[in-house]
């Protein structure tokens, strides 16, 4: 065995740690309600002095920028709730697990939260593929899962314990194509989507269908990869087609580069997108090239609603950066769960599920949220544009 000493040691570390995790730890002390960084323990619902929520997020890996942003907002929401006395008179503890943006790790993280940490409710993920990996686990364990920002319709179809508080792909695609046809009088469009992202592909599909149904013509479709930095080949093709609008349902990191390169190449069309555009980074990176881009979003930062104003101000103060759409959704997710626990009145997973299903007109940062019979959020979309380097409100579109 000596020749494998190091490996045995490595195994030992792993096994030891897991056994440690498996053993019921000491009851956590109730005097440190610091969320997020909180200690782990084994408080069974109703027994411990805390209400334990769990989140699995891509805090490392290719989508880490989204995961980290969501995590920050969730931790802030928990802190604010605890400052107001918590829920059911108990402080909330949020256990954050990282999933490296891998579906199998998301499944592991969800299992750990449910089995080891005995959380009341699971929050997660950004990428629908990771949410889809964890959803069957939460469903089997009859633990409510609330996804703040996975837009794929399939996520909530997994079962009656899975909820969503953002739009589905359908809604945003419809909103933007309607706006393009009715307000911009666009006749022709091209679609540019991320080949590996179901969010991007889903929005594209719906946009294409509704735009064509409204009498518009899709001149061409191209794809890119999330890790791409050069989009000139595809944009040159678009330039040859001279469309009225370009629909790019992507995230700000890539979209910023697409906008800059499109302007360099002299592509004159109007760029449209979804909530992936909502980040201060878009203007920071793309600069002037971002001017005139239009996108659908959950809310406008100009909205006088005090919930919105307070969220934007606190996030800015706490993290010294403006929040993006993912942060807003994650923030709402925690608050909705808190309200549902309050409504349920007991620390019980099934009661929480029922309370979540009954959420109506929740006054969130991302709009008035009502959970419908498919456990999806019904709320209006806001259309924003970039003007003078700032997001500017254009229009509100209500769900049908």
């Amino acid at each position: 065995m000596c020749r494998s000493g190091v490996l045995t040691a490595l195994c030992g570390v792993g096994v030891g740690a897991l056994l440690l995790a498996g053993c019921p730890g000491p009851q956590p002390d109730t005097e440190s309600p610091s969320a997020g960084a909180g200690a782990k323990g084994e408080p069974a619902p109703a027994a411990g002095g805390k209400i334990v929520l769990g989140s699995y997020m891509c805090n490392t890996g290719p989508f880490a920028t989204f995961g980290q942003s969501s995590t920050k907002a969730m931790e802030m929401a928990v802190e604010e709730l605890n400052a107001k006395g918590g829920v059911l008179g108990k402080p909330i503890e949020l256990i954050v697990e990282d999933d490296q943006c891998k579906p199998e790790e998301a499944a592991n993280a969800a299992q750990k939260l449910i089995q080891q940490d005995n959380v009341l409710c699971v929050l997660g993920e950004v990428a629908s593929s990771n949410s889809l990996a964890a959803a069957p686990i939460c469903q089997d364990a009859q633990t409510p899962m609330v996804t703040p920002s996975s837009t794929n319709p399939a996520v909530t179809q997994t079962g009656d314990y899975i909820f969503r508080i953002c739009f589905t792909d359908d809604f945003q695609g419809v909103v933007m194509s309607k706006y393009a046809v009715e307000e911009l009088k666009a006749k022709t469009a091209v679609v540019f989507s991320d080949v590996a992202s179901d969010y991007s592909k889903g929005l594209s599909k719906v946009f294409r269908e509704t735009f064509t149904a409204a009498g518009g013509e899709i001149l061409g479709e191209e794809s890119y990869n999330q890790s791409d930095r050069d989009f000139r080949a595809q944009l040159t093709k678009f330039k040859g087609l001279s469309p009225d609008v370009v629909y790019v349902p992507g995230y700000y990191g890539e979209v910023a580069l697409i906008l800059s390169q499109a302007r360099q190449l002299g592509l004159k069309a109007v760029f449209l997108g979804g909530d992936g555009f909502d980040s201060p980074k878009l203007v920071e990176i793309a600069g002037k090239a971002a001017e005139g881009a239009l996108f659908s979003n959950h809310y406008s930062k100009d909205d006088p609603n005090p919930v919105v104003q307070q969220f934007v101000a606190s996030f800015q103060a706490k993290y010294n950066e403006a929040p993006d759409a993912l942060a807003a959704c994650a923030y709402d997710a925690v608050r909705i769960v808190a309200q549902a626990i309050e409504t349920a009145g007991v620390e019980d997973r099934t009661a929480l599920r029922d309370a979540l299903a009954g959420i109506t007109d929740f006054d969130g940062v991302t709009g008035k949220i009502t959970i419908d019979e498919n456990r999806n959020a019904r709320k209006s979309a806001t259309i924003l544009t970039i003007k003078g380097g700032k997001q500017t409100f254009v229009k509100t579109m209500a769900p049908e």
Partner: protein
Amino acid sequence: MSQQLINAISLGAVYALIALGYTMVYGVLRLINFAHGEVFMVGSFIGLAALSVFHLPFALAVLVAMVGAALLGAVIERGAYRPLRSAPRLAALITAIGVSLLLQNLGMLILGAAPRAYPPAIDPAPIAWLEERAGVVVTRQQVVILAATAAILAGLSLIVSRTKIGKAMRAVSEDRQAAQLMGINVDRVIAFTFCLGSAIAGAGGVFYGVYYGTADPLMGLMPGIKAFVAAVLGGIGSVPGAMLGALLMGLVETGVSSVTLRVSPSLVLTGSTLRDAVAFAVLIAILLLRPAGLLGRPGREKV
């Protein structure tokens, strides 16, 4: 069409920027240096700090990034690779992966994963007279990158073929033990190669950041893999080969992306959707035709 050719060459030049430094280490050590992309990333962030925090001029920022990256390269070589000098080649591959993951994750912990804006130190606007006369868009940045790549290629070729240390590098890569017996300080030669390759990666990182206008902790991942492919495609250890391999990759990727096949109204094959699959198929086909890379020397087998 001519615009796509320019797109292809500029993309190839960007790949070459990374592949040239890669092939140095690769040629001498035969080490698939996974950490190269991360040295490139660190160089890019050093350049970013130099440009936007210390407001240094561009040339100085490149120099600072090169020095910083070279130092990092030296530390990596000393700490993670040199102890494995006598161990099998694949051992160093694992530490390379380890170093790569470590730098990525430290970057994400310290800097956060969000992309950062890079100051446009070179004017990103297209060159007006080319656009008017030829109808093609070429930016000053693209010209600078191409020039930088050419300069690095020329510089490396000179170092490898004309200098004493270059001769020593060739000797070490040919046969390390024999080189040692001939009185060459192998450790020093390898350390030098590493610093040189890392410095080029650092410079590449700054150019890359300025060209695309952004930097993030994972920015080295894809370029690292592409540089590996380009270096192998060109023929292991061949500096001009890496350049050629990178240009070819830019050409193939852009070429595939620019094609749309309308098989039938319902079945339209968009090149950009299948780009990576087709590009890799083409690369494999090229390798099958030239099993030792484009400029590689077919391995003579000793019997």
